[in-house]
């Protein structure tokens, strides 16, 4: 099974007055798993549906291995798809669901059953062939759906939020398994999700979409460490926007002078973008003296705890501390706040961004 190269070229699609795709350009390399990530309504599902043939773009084209498939009907495209949920045929058992595509192609029953069994084993469900969809758990149903999508050896695998209806534990196991299968089969895979953790943990590259356009496409580490736009910074992971003053190639923020990473805007007053794990907090009573702020909320997450600290000037900062340390940061604790000595990203300070960065006073 070899993956195909998929290209979206200037894809546009509007539904009435809403623009779902506004000139999307994206190339997916053979064998790559790419995640389309974005808030709802950003066009990620529409892009996938254009590739599957369930949606016709108003403009632009979709190419698979260089050939234009924009006008090819959905049932003659070489792409297997896994849907969000409830996509198994309720009247067929798991084996016949997996064998459906082969049945459409009039493959003899014996070969169909053998191949279905082979695929059910591949997705880790060797003994559910006789069960009907309503007798399977949500996770099992999605595994069968995956087996069904792979049965015809498609050159592209399309995953439309296949894990979003599952509970947390199953979701994590299944996403690891999908990734393992995808790597071993080498099949080009496009994965639509609104869950950034899912996208970052599974994909070779993540494409962040906003209002039908590509914001940034990069490997997960780059996307997280060097978001190209403030939107990406905000959407992927949590991000602090702290007021700073640029002078030369350095920026003054929270009383520290840090080197600026990448380009800096024209204005001197900027937003400094800092991840919560790059914020250092220490309880004041340990060292004595005045604090910079007070812990408002502490939410324990196991390995870490995320603090929301209100600084004396009213700015709120998110900071991560080790989970075993969380007892020292109970709400009400006065803390000193600093930043890890590392180059930081800065962004222009539009009025709206300032308003968004300073939360409403009633947040307690």
């Amino acid at each position: 099974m070899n993956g195909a190269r998929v290209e979206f070229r200037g894809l546009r699609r509007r539904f009435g007055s809403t623009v779902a795709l506004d000139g999307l350009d994206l190339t997916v390399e053979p064998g790559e798993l790419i995640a389309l990530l974005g808030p709802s309504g950003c066009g990620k599902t529409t892009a996938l549906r254009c590739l599957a043939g369930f949606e016709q773009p108003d403009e632009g084209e979709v190419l698979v291995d260089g050939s234009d498939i924009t006008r090819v009907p959905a049932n003659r495209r070489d792409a297997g798809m896994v849907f969000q949920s409830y996509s198994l045929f309720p009247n067929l058992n798991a084996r016949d669901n997996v064998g459906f595509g082969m049945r459409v192609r009039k493959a003899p029953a014996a070969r169909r059953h053998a191949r279905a069994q082979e695929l059910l084993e591949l997705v880790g469900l060797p003994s559910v062939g006789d069960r009907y969809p309503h007798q399977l758990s949500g996770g099992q149903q999605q595994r069968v759906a995956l087996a069904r999508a792979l049965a015809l050896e498609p050159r592209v695998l399309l995953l439309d939020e296949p894990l979003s209806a599952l509970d947390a534990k199953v979701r994590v196991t299944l996403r690891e398994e999908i990734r393992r299968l995808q790597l071993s089969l080498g099949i080009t895979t496009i994965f639509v999700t609104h869950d950034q953790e899912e996208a970052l943990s599974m994909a070779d590259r993540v494409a962040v979409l906003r209002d039908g356009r590509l914001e940034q496409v990069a490997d997960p580490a780059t996307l997280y460490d060097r978001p190209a736009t403030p939107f990406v910074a905000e959407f992927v992971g949590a991000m602090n926007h702290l007021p700073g003053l640029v002078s030369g190639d350095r920026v003054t923020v929270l009383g520290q002078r840090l080197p600026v990473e990448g380009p800096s805007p024209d204005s001197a007053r900027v937003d400094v973008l800092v991840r919560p794990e790059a914020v250092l907090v220490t309880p004041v009573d340990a060292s004595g003296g005045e604090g910079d702020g007070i812990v408002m909320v502490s939410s324990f997450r196991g390995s870490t705890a995320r603090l929301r600290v209100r600084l004396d000037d009213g700015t709120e900062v998110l900071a991560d501390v080790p989970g075993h340390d969380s007892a020292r940061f109970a709400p009400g604790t006065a803390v000193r706040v600093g930043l890890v000595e590392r180059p930081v990203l800065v962004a222009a300070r539009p009025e709206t961004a300032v308003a968004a960065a300073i939360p409403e006073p009633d947040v307690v």
Partner: protein
Amino acid sequence: MASLTPQVTPGTAPGAAPAPAPSRPGRPRRPRVWRGAVLLLAAVYFLVPLIASFVFTVKAPGQGFSLDAYGQIFSAEGFGGSLLLSLGLGVATIVLVLLLTLPAVVAVRLGAPRLRPVLEVVCTLPLVVPPITFVAGISTVLRWGPDYLATTPLYQTMIAVQNPDFPVVLVLAYVVLALPFAYRSLDAGLGAIDVRTLSEAARNLGASWPHVLLRVIIPNMRSAMASASFLTLALVLGEFTIARLLSFETFPNWIYRISGSQAQVSVAVSVFSLLITWLLLLALSSAGARQRSGS
């Protein structure tokens, strides 16, 4: 970010919860009495006429218990012919109404969801047209047609649809009458499955549209189709006005005819046809149930 802020107001929720709890155990007791009363009333309403009919058929004045009336049904002149005619009309109507509504309902659901209210109104319209108006219109057309179409091939068609052995015109009329019931059943059945996802999954696996309809949608709508068929059959087996005014001897019209001469037999036939209808209902609903347990 908002999830970090404690929005819960702990005072209200636990305080409100215990209040309705004590009243709950006492609640079902009173309705149970009412339930029984309603059931009894309904039972009286339905069973008294049935029992009275049955008693009337088995007890002739001055004689004792006798099932003679039931024996006479089968030898009565016209019984077999009219029953077969009604069943034949019923089957033809079912086939035609399903062929019309099923693709329409599916197409509207998948392709033009905004047309759904239009389809609903169109299919429900026959309910508001009184049968007498309907049949008056039909008979006007049937009278007018042959005169004006005498020299065209349509003349033969006008005659053919009125063939008393199998009056196609009745099938056409019954299809219209059955539309609201068929539409309701099929629309509800379609609402119970995710047609869009299922058909997209099938399309993705290479199925053409006819294949999607035959292999994916229809198998998952068997119980809805069964109930549409049953309602249609019950309607056709009981329809009197149109057949009577167009002078075709369907089963209800035959019952009406013999009730003048053989009152006891006609009531026996009514009880008998009720039994047939019940058996058909049982058969159809068990077909639906078998599908549900199988899937």
